[in-house]
């Protein structure tokens, strides 16, 4: 399992942000982000967590990943 710390979370989010070409549909954008986060951080999110509001806030994402991994 990849060693995860806050730096890695922030780096991944920065890289993702640099790439992001917004989907017209915010929910679809959230699904796209969830695919990335689940793969990189080896977590499984609930439907409620695949949420455009959560993914719009890097701190919230970092907290979510930490919660799901039980780390930091």
């Amino acid at each position, binding site marked *: 399992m990849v060693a995860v710390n806050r730096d890695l979370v922030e780096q991944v989010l920065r890289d993702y942000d640099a790439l992001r070409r917004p989907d017209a549909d915010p929910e*679809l954008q959230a699904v796209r982000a969830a*695919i990335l986060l*689940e793969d990189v951080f080896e977590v499984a999110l609930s439907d409620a967590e695949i949420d455009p509001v959560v993914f719009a806030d890097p701190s919230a994402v970092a907290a979510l990943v930490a919660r799901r991994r039980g780390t930091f």
Partner: protein
Amino acid sequence: MCGVCGIVGYDGPPDLALLRRMMGRLGHRGPDGNGCYRDRRAALGHTRLAIIDTSGGAQPLCNEDGTVWVTFNGEIFNYVELGEELRHRGHTFRTASDTEVIVHAWEEWGEECFSRFNGQWAIALWDRRAERLVLSRDRLGVRPLFFIRLPTGLLFASEVKSIFADPSVARAFDPAGLDQTFTYWSPVAPRTVFRGIEQLEPGHYAVLDRDGFRKAPYWRSTFPERGREPVQDAQENAEALRERIIEATRLRFLRSDVPVGAYLSGGLDSSVTAAVISRYTDAPLHTFSLRFSDSEFDEGQYQKKMSAVLGTQHQDIVVSPSDIAAVFPEVVRHAETPILRAAPAPLFLLSKLVRENGYKVVVTGEGADEVLAGYDLFREARVRLFWSRDPGSAKRTRAAELLYPWMARSPGRMPAFARSFFGRHLDPDDPAVSHRPRWDSTSVIKSMLSGDLQDGIGRAGAEDVVAAMPPGSEDWDPLSRGQWLEMTTLLAGYILASQGDRMLMANSVEGRFPFLDREVVDFANALPARHKLFGLEEKYLLKRAFADLVPDDIIHRPKQPYRAPDAASFFTADRPAWFDEVMSERAVAAAGVFEPSVVAGLLAKCRRTDGKNMSNTDNMRVLAIVSTQLTHESFIAERGCGAPERALPDPSVAVDLVTDDRSVP
């Protein structure tokens, strides 16, 4: 790039006339010269496409005392560095060719020499003293090498048609080879579609001597355990990748004594290689592109844009469905195997354009999709794994809409279909989870097979490529497992063969592939998977590494897989007469592969729409049948050679130790 062939006889000297016939069938691979060698046990043949040391370097070529001979197809790109090392170790060189490096490297390092080579090759070495034949093939299977083991000896050649020059070689389809083709898109080495004909596995060498025949790998495609990749920083990896790709491209452009051109597909990979040549070499660049009369397949606007950005001298060819049908029999004769897409045909026409413009070497972007994870199949797999974590989630189902945004009939507009198609066999623990949808949809072809062939396949037993995955692969990232399967099946068996070597060499053109450079592949395999496929962003690191050299709209355009009109090519009003002949009930029954009534039904369905708007499965079925019928006609039914036999000019090298006749330049 050249053609190689040879014979090792167990019962007296090999037949020189047979060797010459074998060479004649490889004339298209080497129109610039030819040569042969024979002693009491072995004979080597060579047809030459002269690229390095065009005045010297004729083959077969030997060491200082004439005890080791080589016939070689390909390039050893690090031959300059290896030559220097071998000279320091006391070896004396007579030529400036990479071929001679092989002989001395073999003397110095034995079979370990292959792991020192960075290149693309099919090699046959004959050690007279040990009476030992050594065959070797490059790591990923860029160059072909076939052989057959007979009670009387062993024959080898760059193409099967050369082996079929021996009338004693029986000709029949191998049911297991066809089974693999109709599952994986091609036979998986060592198997071919012809009974008794084997191909040396990529990354392997084989030895035939007094102790018998044996094979061993000198290289294997491998990946680190997920999470234990050596460098986790994306920027550091992007810079290192860039360095390696630049060096690999420079080597392939500069190490040639004839001009080298480049393909420009309009996609990212060939744009990167062409841009690197423009930026990092001084030579003017000539680029070549393939266009389609059907706008669904055409990428002309991106090709023109990239050519304009780089200031290349650019030429293209526009291919129509009728063009594909016209050359398809010749394409299959060169491919020597059934093909499930028409896509090789336009590439055959493209290499013809290259040759007509006086070029015989091109650099292309082939291999990037496998090495750096560009294929849609990898994106599909990631979506499938995403679904598998909560199969009932409606929100997750929407991921289907993120696949194939470029397609007019996007699964995004048909989420139920996409969810159903990609949602089958959704087992996250399946090592081949990435490939099951493709293999399943391809296997539909087998429902059309004749009863006899189905029985034959049943008797042969299924060969599961998944069972051959290396120990430890269960700890790789799922993307790495998918990459391994893709490199083992489609890359070697179809992309580099039917779409690569065969279509290029049909017109005497050598392809060079920087993304398949040893250093690039080993480095890419060791990357964290997320640096290759970042979420659903394919070839992420490549885009990041070359963002300054390739325009944004090419970097960020949705990936468009290379495709050509399939069934539609064969149902135009002006379709050639050969099509109806090879697809007739009589011809289908004679070949014995497909059930004639089922074929007739499919053809009737195609005729109703002129082959247009057919499903992916029906397109594949039509191509499978027509190419199998042509393969049967060319190589089995007519007992021909599948291509015109060329009269060879006088040889540059002719050494016959049986009659003690020598003529070495």
